[in-house]
């Protein structure tokens, strides 16, 4: 059986034109899929097979009911639980997660706080001149990638949405210029019309110099952040001179020195450019639904990540109510991890903290976090075995499909979280 218009659930591009061939409840092939997508769809990674509970220090198989009971017990006995993950699942699951945090008086945080958080903090400060990706495809004659390497991290971004795409008013690569700013000559940089090699951690300086140049001020230095002033001026000219420009930034900008200040500068630069021409800026979000996690959390609580319900109402203070911080302070006394592997990705010291508290993991696959958990519940893979709403990096909502049935007895995130919420509500009265 052939399924068309399949929405990919790997990166923030959320390509929705995959054609998948299914035979016998197995995916045989996937057309239009990039390498990342193919490897997920044709996945042979080791799955979690059965719910598990830790007993006498060892994880043993358990029934789903037993695992859910134990999970509900851990969470409802916790004073300040952390509900972490949420970027590799659907909006419907995130919504239940927020209610769970509310009922428990815990913290719900998503991967944003360790990747694009500074981007959202920047929006609090500056706002953002943004658009959907189709605006770029139809109108943009200048594309800038800053601190991101789409050739490897978002393989179809350039072909579907930017330099190589074909829209109503821009038909080909020849009609668009590409500028890449990075600390090294990446594979994306090799395709650029202008490559600007910035000194590591020099982004803020370079952005500030660009802002000055865009405002027509003369730069007195010879070079800024390792970039000759002539090149900065050339880049500024290109940005002012385009008809529609789009700047895409990656974690190279959000997670280098300056963090949210870098984003403030980038957002301000693009805002300033709008007095001269049309310019937009978009983050290159990594996980396929990290944007959805932000949006759902925002419409339910007012805030995009790191939301603390311990006061009985939503409270937000990134750097204080975010996962790393509450773990570092040793305040958190239980964790629910949904579709994420913090034990593999958090700093070592924080992972050690994580090992001191009971963890409940919901994941389709084996992971380092599952290994240190009290309760492990296998889940269906979203966009392959489970349907749900996801948001592309530009906030365009898409419906991920169920292509094949999950393994016997394996439930979706939504089903498991609903049962968990029900149980917690009873235990908490």
């Amino acid at each position, binding site marked *: 059986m052939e399924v068309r*218009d399949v*929405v990919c659930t790997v990166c923030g591009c959320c390509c*929705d*034109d995959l054609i998948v061939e299914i035979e016998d409840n197995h995916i045989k092939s996937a057309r239009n899929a990039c390498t990342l997508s193919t490897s997920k769809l044709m996945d042979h990674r080791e799955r979690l097979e059965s719910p598990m509970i830790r007993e006498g220090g060892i994880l043993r198989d358990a029934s789903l009911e037993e695992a859910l009971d134990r999970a509900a017990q851990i969470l409802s006995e916790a004073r300040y639980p952390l509900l972490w993950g949420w970027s590799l699942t659907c*909006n419907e699951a995130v*919504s239940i997660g927020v*209610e769970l945090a*509310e009922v428990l008086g815990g913290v719900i945080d998503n991967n944003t706080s360790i990747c694009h958080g500074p981007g*959202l903090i920047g*929006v*609090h*400060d*500056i*706002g*953002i*001149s*943004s*658009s*959907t*990706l*189709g*605006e770029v*495809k*139809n*109108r943009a004659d200048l594309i800038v990638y800053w601190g991101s390497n789409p050739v490897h991290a978002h393989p179809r971004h350039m072909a*579907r*949405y930017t330099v190589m795409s074909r*829209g*109503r*008013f821009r038909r080909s690569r020849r009609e668009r210029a590409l500028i890449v700013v990075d600390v090294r000559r990446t594979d994306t940089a090799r395709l650029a019309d202008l490559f600007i090699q910035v000194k590591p951690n020099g982004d803020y300086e370079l952005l500030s110099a660009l802002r000055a140049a865009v405002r027509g001020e003369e730069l007195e230095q010879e070079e800024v952040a390792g970039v000759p002033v002539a090149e900065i001026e050339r880049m500024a000219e290109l940005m002012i001179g385009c*008809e*529609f420009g789009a700047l895409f930034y990656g974690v190279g900008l959000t997670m280098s020195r300056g963090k949210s200040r870098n984003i403030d500068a980038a957002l301000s630069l693009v*805002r300033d450019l*709008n*007095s001269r*021409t*049309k310019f*937009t800026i978009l983050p290159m979000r990594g996980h396929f639904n990290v944007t959805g996690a932000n*949006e*759902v959390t*925002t*419409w*339910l*609580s*007012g*805030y*995009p990540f790191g939301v603390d*319900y311990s006061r*009985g*109402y*939503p*409270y*937000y203070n990134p750097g204080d109510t975010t996962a790393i911080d509450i773990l570092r302070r040793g305040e958190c006394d239980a964790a629910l991890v949904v579709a994420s592997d913090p034990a593999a990705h958090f700093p070592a010291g924080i992972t050690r903290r994580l090992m001191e508290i009971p963890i409940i993991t919901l994941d389709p696959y084996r992971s380092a976090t599952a290994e240190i958990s009290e309760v492990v519940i296998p889940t269906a893979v979203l966009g392959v075995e489970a349907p749900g*709403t996801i*948001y592309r990096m530009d*906030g*365009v*909502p*898409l*419906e991920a499909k169920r292509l094949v049935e999950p393994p016997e007895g394996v439930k979706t995130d939504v089903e498991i979280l609903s049962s968990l919420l029900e149980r917690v509500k009873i235990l908490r009265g």
Partner: protein
Amino acid sequence: MELLIRNGTVFDPLNHVDGERMDIAVKDGKIVEDVSSRAEVIDASGMIVMPGGVDIHSHIAGSKVNTGRLMRPEDHYRDYEFRRPQRRAGVGHSIPSTYTTGYRYAEMGYTTVFEPATPPLKARHTHEELNEIPMIDKGCFTLLGNNWFIMDYLREGRIEECKGFVAWMLEATKGYAVKLVNPGGVEAWGWGRYIIGLDDPVPRFEITPREIVEGLCRINSMLRLPHPIHVHTNNMARVGNYETTIATMETVADQASGSPRNIHVTHVQFTGRKGSSWVNVRSGAEEISSYVNRRGHAELDIGQIIFGDTTTMTADGSFQYLLHILSGNKWANADVEVETGAGVVPYTYRRSNYVNAIQWGIGLELALLIEDPWRIHMTTDHPNGGPFTEYPRVIAWLMSRKARDKTLSKINKTARRRLILPGIDREYTLSEIAILTRAATAKSLGLTDKGHLGVGADADIAIYAMDVEKVDPSKEYRLLRRAFRRTAYTIKEGEIVVKDGEIVKTVFGRTFWVKPWVKGDLMERVKEDVRERFEEYYTVRFGNYPIPDSYLRRPQVIRAGG
């Protein structure tokens, strides 16, 4: 379940009930003739009983509302709601979280609210939020005034195909009405450019705003949609824009023969300015209201401003950019491919500010100068003029000259001199308020079971603790304001959901959407016709674009015949 509301003072203008002492019976979510002796009795003696409020224009859900929330943590820090047994936690002020939005409307006796600006490509987002707004019935208007397919069809004179396309768009987005925002102008803003007049060509499309308005108005009538075209006119950013507002109404006047009401011009306060610069800006309310009083085909909503801090947001990206430049406040822009745009800017209206004071006056002058209360709806264009929670303040200004004088005495002196408001004596009656806030809006939306308390109507009822025999709203406007801030009871679909101003039960209302009927295979032909260009213009597949009915928590389809 049965309810008997006994002995209240009932205001039900659609059924010509004006302050009569009577009982209202409710059974299974509907108003009925009578109930059994087992019915729960509410003693409404000394209280006002009205149909539940129906808000025709309030930005409560969708991507730009959420951008506003994201952009303004400072809006939430000072206004939050604890989790309580009957209700979820949330945050408030100008852009409340979804649950808080529903609760605060219900507390004021509003039971139906329409989100007026949904970008089709992000309609799923709007519906996701509507699904999580409790307490009220709702719906959303689909933004079509800058749609490339519509502009192409209209330019080519293919009105039949355009009609099919509009019908398909409403169905695909589960929308309720055709919304135009700065027609053609938002497309121009896609290039960072502006459109000034109704006859300026849209860059690269060779069509004018006038042609878009006329075309969509004609299609709206052909499809017999329940609500007229809902128009945010061009030129909001300019001072002398009242002329554009009148010209926009005029341009569809000759189409009005068959359907008496064929255009709803929204938040007219924002496009009711006269003058040539911000220094000499005046109110254009006299000219606009004189047009509306003479011509029966147009209706308006006010978009009243409230002094204080709020968050402005519209699909009119170019206007928001101007406001950002004028105010220096932070700015978000969110253009949507092929369809529309959006902008968000926080703003504080100040009494001492000349322009803000004039704006405040324009809204009230419009409401007081337009004679027919059925053609002027009460809104603040939430949150653009101010949060919807300030409606009681607007009611007090409309009902009490004393309340107006009190505010007038505090506003910018030059503005006060230049407004005609101080000379207007009119004071609205409670019955007229019931028209402005529920009866007329329900009627304009074509919701026959709402906005009244006749047998068969939805049992959405607001009971306000104010004794009309003891309180004169004109003099004691503070008591009036207090009564309308929180109901004694709000009844939704026959259930008591608010009691003494507190939520006692969380319920979820329906989402209304319109499915227009078109002849034969027109819709299929149109879909075939747009498919190829669709894949070229959009970044999503044609097949992934429409939203299924099952996506809505409680869908309620309204069929329209074309």
